[in-house]
């Protein structure tokens, strides 16, 4: 195997028993074990996103990240052809020029290479992707001995594809969850991270949490034992702390007691500032939020976020900067607990109003599907036709994310009034031009704070990328 061109036919997965024995013999903890240890130690586990097309370069990337930044978990970020089951395209690009892939095509490389990657580093791996139907990928991932898998039937459909009916993605993910359940019964816990980040841009916390609750209920019913609920930093400190603190409360309320639930923070997932110093301010801010909000794990960003897939060096620097948040010297920090308390109350109320009608449905999957059909479940900026995207989020003057329009979400009058009041100055939503302008400005939130122009030079100043190599 030359490690460059993919095997012509990805090999069949081995029997589950062989895989379970393989994981046991790997000599490294599972992702679930790492998460539990981090929580017990009161520190935030750190994990980068990382994925390149070439197998040998992926190996080097993982090794370099481990060696220089000591993350707690490493990632295989999967390319977007594979996500959409465009396996032939993935293979074509891999053969033409692996550097043109925006992730690692694990299915195309096949599980024996997945195991090579697993063996190349001492920390567990997670597969992060965005596949409405991830069965092939999950099979390969399990066969590779990878103990953490991201996604869900809602959260990996609506933001990632246009025309996959929810019934299909929910069914595909039910299979994934059921296989997790089987593995759990046979003694291997797969950490299932739910992609509460959704479309990442101006996602109201209660939407993120509500979708995660539904996916968590669905997956634990299939036997999943370790659930990581990911929440995307929105940018308002107290609102974000409240959202992170809501996760254990929601777990206690809606999930079986024996399931382990971890709060995961995704460092700001919206439009990132371009200047390195600004991006780093945001990275550190996110990391501090993870600590102060009590997250078990943090997924980091890099100062190249606004430009493209980061190089190894930027990824290392992002991890190292974020790791400052685990400093033992920051216990002096306190913050506005009253405001956090109020936000927590509100977000729990909104989540309850969204999820409880759905959880009452006789069949959860059908309940979800029909709720989306009727707009009683919804997400903003959906890529998919199967969500109405009637929700229009806006930032209140203090930066908190509220609902300007909540479409057909089953909100109480109190909730509606609260949202309306906090956006009182945001103008008439029916004035389309003004609305797009305001929305754009809210999307540019951090660019505005840093005084960066909203214009988007898609080619970075080469100095930004290279500056450190000249010293």
């Amino acid at each position: 195997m030359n490690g460059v061109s993919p095997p012509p036919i990805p090999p069949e997965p081995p029997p589950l028993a062989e895989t379970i024995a393989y994981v046991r013999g790997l000599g490294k903890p599972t992702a679930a074990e790492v998460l539990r240890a981090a929580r017990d130690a009161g520190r935030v586990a750190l994990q980068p996103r990382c994925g390149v097309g070439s197998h040998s370069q992926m190996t080097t990337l993982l090794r370099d990240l481990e060696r220089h930044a000591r993350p707690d978990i490493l990632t295989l970020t999967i390319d977007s052809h594979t996500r959409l089951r465009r396996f032939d395209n993935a293979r074509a690009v891999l053969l033409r020029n692996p550097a043109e892939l925006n992730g690692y095509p694990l299915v195309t490389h096949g599980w024996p290479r997945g195991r090579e990657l697993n063996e190349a580093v001492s920390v567990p791996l997670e597969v992060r992707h965005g596949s409405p139907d991830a069965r092939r990928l999950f099979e390969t991932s399990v066969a590779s001995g990878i103990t953490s898998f991201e996604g869900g039937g809602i959260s990996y459909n609506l933001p990632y594809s246009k025309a996959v009916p929810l019934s299909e993605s929910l069914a595909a993910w039910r299979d994934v969850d059921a296989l997790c359940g089987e593995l759990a019964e046979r003694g291997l816990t797969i950490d299932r991270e739910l992609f509460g980040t959704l479309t990442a841009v101006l996602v109201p916390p209660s939407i993120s949490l509500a979708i995660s609750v539904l996916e968590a209920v669905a997956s634990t019913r299939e036997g999943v034992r370790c659930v990581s609920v990911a929440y995307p930093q929105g940018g308002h400190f107290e609102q974000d702390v409240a959202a992170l603190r809501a996760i254990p409360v929601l777990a206690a309320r809606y999930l079986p007691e024996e399931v382990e639930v971890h709060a995961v923070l995704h460092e700001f997932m919206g439009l990132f500032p371009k200047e390195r110093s600004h991006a780093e301010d945001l990275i550190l801010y996110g990391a501090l939020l993870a600590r102060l909000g009590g997250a078990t794990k943090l997924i980091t960003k890099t100062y190249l976020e606004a430009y493209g897939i980061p190089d190894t060096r930027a990824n290392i620097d992002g991890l190292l900067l974020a790791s400052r948040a685990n400093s033992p010297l920051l216990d002096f920090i306190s913050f506005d607990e009253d405001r956090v308390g109020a936000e927590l109350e509100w977000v729990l109320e909104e989540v309850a109003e969204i999820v409880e009608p759905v959880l009452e449905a006789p069949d959860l999957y059908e309940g979800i599907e029909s709720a989306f059909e009727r707009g009683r479940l919804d997400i903003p900026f959906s890529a998919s036709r199967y969500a109405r995207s009637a929700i229009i989020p806006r930032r209140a003057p203090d930066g908190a994310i509220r609902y300007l329009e909540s479409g057909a979400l089953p909100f109480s009058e109190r909730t509606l009034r609260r949202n309306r009041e906090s956006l009182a100055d945001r103008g008439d939503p029916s004035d389309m031009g003004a609305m797009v302008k305001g929305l754009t400005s809210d999307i540019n939130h951090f660019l505005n704070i840093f005084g960066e122009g909203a214009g988007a030079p898609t080619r970075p100043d080469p100095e930004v990328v290279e500056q450190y190599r000249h010293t």
Partner: protein
Amino acid sequence: MRNEPVTRTVILGMAASDAHVVANQLIAHSLRSQGFHVVNLGACTSIAEFATAYDEHPDAEAVIIGSLNGHAYEDLQDLPAARADGLLGCPVILGGNLSVGSNKEAVDDERFHALGVEMILSDPELLPATLDGFRSPSARPAEVR
């Protein structure tokens, strides 16, 4: 020569493997608020889908394709054939983040022109002016290519 349509139509969408729709939706809203009829095909739109839409809207002034995930080149592989078969008779405009990686020095606009892209834009605010440009006789599709 047919008369100028009263409403100007454009076809908009993201490239075949690309799920990013925030810019896409904002561009649609913004062109609409400027009076355009926008046929927005949204995320993950194959060349075949663009061709079908063009077939339904032969008055479209342009097909505007966004790509952010870095896969623009692979995602447009079917474009030359579609153009050769006359399935896309209007200019194709491409914009977004067109290559994988953070160092964009290597991005080669020529590659995209060779596939049949008339124009690469970075700032969506330039779209109306660009569309106006394409309407002036000297810049009609045939001449442009």
